């Protein structure tokens, strides 16, 4: 009989202890980050959306080969005067990219011509938009700050389809 009451007492005490933990946290400050209003700062090494600098690229194809998901493609033309390859276009399919840093690590230029930005809010509204294209004739990108709108760094690269429809060349 005594054991029976002891067991009930122990059980009750275990319940009270559990209730105590939840009650304690009822009055603790929350850990939530209210996302659209406050944003976390990504870590130094954070692998965000890929950024590309067309003027630095030497069209060596290393990133194309290093990419495990075949999301990078480029076309280069041999320049007879400088004996170098000139970049024609450089495309990244962000739908395929799995943010692994292999392209950045293999990149031969200094500073890296393709690298991860700290941009984590990359969004597209259509499947075609996922393919972003860079061309060397576009202006040089500015330095990428975290929290900067992703659109700004993508001004250098645009979906090929969209570009043709809106660019001034298209109107000619």
């Amino acid at each position, binding site marked *: 009989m005594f054991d029976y009451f002891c067991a009930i007492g122990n059980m009750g005490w275990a319940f009270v202890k559990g209730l*105590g*933990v*939840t009650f304690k*946290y009822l009055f603790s400050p929350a850990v939530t980050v209210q996302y659209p209003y406050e944003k976390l700062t990504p870590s130094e*090494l954070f692998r965000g959306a890929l950024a590309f600098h067309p003027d630095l690229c030497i069209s060596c194809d290393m990133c194309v*080969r*290093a990419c495990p998901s075949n999301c990078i493609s480029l076309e280069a033309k041999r320049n007879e005067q400088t004996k170098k390859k000139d970049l024609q276009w450089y495309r990244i399919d962000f739908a395929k990219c799995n943010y*692994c*840093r292999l392209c950045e690590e293999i990149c031969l230029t200094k500073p890296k011509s393709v690298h991860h930005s700290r941009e984590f809010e990359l969004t597209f509204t259509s499947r075609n938009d996922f393919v972003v294209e860079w061309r060397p004739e576009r202006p040089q990108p500015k330095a990428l700050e975290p929290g900067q709108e992703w659109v700004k760094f993508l001004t250098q690269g645009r979906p090929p389809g969209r570009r043709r429809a809106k660019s001034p060349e298209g109107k000619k």
Partner: protein
Amino acid sequence: MNPLNPPAGVINATADSILSGPSFETKMERLSETEMLLNMGPQHPSTHGVLRVVLKLDGEVVTGAMPDVGYLHRGVEKLSENRLYPQVIVLTDRDDYLCAMLNNWAYCLAVEQLLKVEVPARAEYIRVLVGELNRIASHLVLIGTFGIDIGAFTPFLYAFGREREMILDLLDQVSGARITYNYIRIGGVMADLPAGWTEKAGKFVAHMRACLKEYDDLLTYNPIFLDRTRGVGILSKESAVSYGVAGPNLRASGVPLDLRKMAPYGVYGKFDFEMALGKNGDCFDRYLVRRNEIEQSLRIIEQALEALPAGDILGKVPKANIRPPAGEAYAHIEGARGWLGVYLISDGSLQPYRMHVRAPSFISLAVLQEILKGWKVADVVAILGSIDIVLGEVDR
């Protein structure tokens, strides 16, 4: 026929076709008058992914069970046959997405065996650090989701939403990603630890210890939780061994087998830690082994932080064109769910000829058919939760 309102025969026909299908015809006997067939999954809140378990029920009691896997098959092993060696690491991240570091590690060990590369000491210690952190993160997922399966929601938000998140932040600072790290590389690791990281990790160890006490109060010694898990889904020593179960599930059955102890890889031989062991092999033991393993992992992390040497982080491995000599290698580590083995065949080219992953949760899943029988529907969820499967790894 109105497709939205088919006559009764059609609905019965689907149940019949499930039963008479080639796999279930052989594995499960026909339904008797009082039995019914219940499809648990692939969309079900507590099958931890896209697992389907076909249950034969007599009222609430399970009289037969058939796990059906393959809904998350992505062909990782086949894909790796036309990826370069470093690219396969990215695929192994996606195998067991709850402890990607350990997957990276197992694969890299196999390639290092082929290449016969020495890994620098600092890289080994960093591997231990991130690996153990990742193991804790994985066990925290079990604690949280097991709580949810049993019906307690709050431990999930403490373990999964707070502590695991902190580990992910720590690993993010190291590797730049939160889940798919691609951090452990052939011959070393991707990057050195950032400044101030070791202090943060040290603080985290103390924090985690305090949190474990809270989990105990909230979940481990809650009488309802004990009632739900003790003596439920007993996996005996013998059947655990005969099924080839390894890792925490095996240790819960009382078999002392831990690769970190038995066949130390890396620098595990230098650490002082104990093997968490269970007695009965029931759900509670499987849970408790993981909970205790977190403590042991914290001990290892503390020792590794103390002994962390300076030096290189990458051995002598070519930057591009890794071309191991022809041959084969098998490396296994103690993953968060058991023996995580990677078998590699190289034909001397840039890509593996064949890669095979010994996925621990796939083997644990096979036990289900045996240990589900005779328990209630509510216990099915508890047992499924306690054997801790990750469908990404099961289906690969």
